[in-house]
């Protein structure tokens, strides 16, 4: 039964799945969790650069979503809803980290330099790999210097490949504001990359 449902969900579009799941009260939340967990984890990992924190917040996000599953009306897509929860949890995480400045907390965040080592094992040449690694390192450097909101917008746009209106809906900002944040982030990326050539 679960396999059949997964196949059906995979064959449907994101929005269609959201509507279908939202309308079917008996839909199993486990299907939603299985489907969207990697994406939530990826977004949180890219935002926090801490795999353990990303895993913990992913679990918290799904737990919170499960508790509020009955109240989800399908006005937005499931992914938008889940990412909104994840973003709020991420905010709380940063806030609690700021509040705990007086005590030594274990920080497992991976350095931007190390994060740039991850590249898909493609068929590109060693030179291209080296160039790509260098570019990724520069982008990470820029991302590190962005404000929390700019970073969130940047990640949603360039890692999750979301549309501007989807980002606006997820973060709860106007499309104009999202564009402004994105533009500012891109100016910095352009300056860093342009300055290197």
């Amino acid at each position, binding site marked *: 039964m679960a396999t059949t449902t997964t196949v059906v969900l995979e064959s449907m579009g994101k929005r269609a799945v959201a509507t279908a799941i939202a309308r079917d009260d008996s839909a199993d939340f486990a299907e939603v969790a299985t489907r969207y967990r*990697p994406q939530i*984890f*990826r977004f949180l*990992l*890219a935002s926090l650069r801490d*795999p*353990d924190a*990303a*895993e*913990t917040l992913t*679990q918290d996000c799904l737990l919170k979503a499960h508790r509020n599953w009955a109240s989800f009306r399908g006005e937005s897509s499931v992914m938008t809803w889940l990412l909104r929860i994840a973003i709020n949890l991420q905010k*709380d995480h940063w806030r*609690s980290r700021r*509040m*705990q400045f007086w*005590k030594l907390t274990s920080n497992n965040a991976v350095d931007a330099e190390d*994060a*740039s080592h*991850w*590249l*898909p*094992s493609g068929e590109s040449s060693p030179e291209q790999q080296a160039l*790509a*690694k260098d*570019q*990724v390192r*520069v*982008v*990470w450097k820029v991302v590190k210097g962005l404000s929390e909101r700019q970073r969130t917008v940047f990640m949603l746009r*360039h*890692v999750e*490949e979301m549309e501007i209106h989807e980002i606006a809906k997820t973060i709860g900002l106007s499309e104009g504001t999202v564009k402004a944040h994105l533009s500012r982030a*891109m100016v910095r*990326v*352009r300056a860093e*990359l*342009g300055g290197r*050539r």
Partner: protein
Amino acid sequence: MSFEEKNRLNEDEQIELALRSFRDSVHAWSEQEFSKARTIRRSRWDAFWRVLANPVLGWTLASALVVTSVGVPVTVHHQRELVAARNAQMLRQQLLEKQAAQQEAVAMSDDELLSHVDSDVAQAAPDAMEPLASLMSDSSSQ
């Protein structure tokens, strides 16, 4: 196409390529990390902060703090005033008792003085005046 336009296009391509590499890198890293078995570790402090993050509990604790910080000094001040009033009353009482005792002592000494004066002034009548003295005592008794 001018040189500047070409340059601009080239730059855009480079940025596009860099962003694609970044996306691929994050996806590869995420897939690698996601496939790892990981236990969710939470320290006791994490649980503590998580509980504190609850707004209802936060407001309750804040209210308790305000009530305590205002109530305790007010109570202590009130207690001190009560003790001071009690002490003042006791002192007043002691003073009154002392004054009464002094007055009583003064009253007793007056009686003693009168009897002393009386005994000093009083003299035995000479033998020759004894009948007159008895006569005076008889007339005073009548």
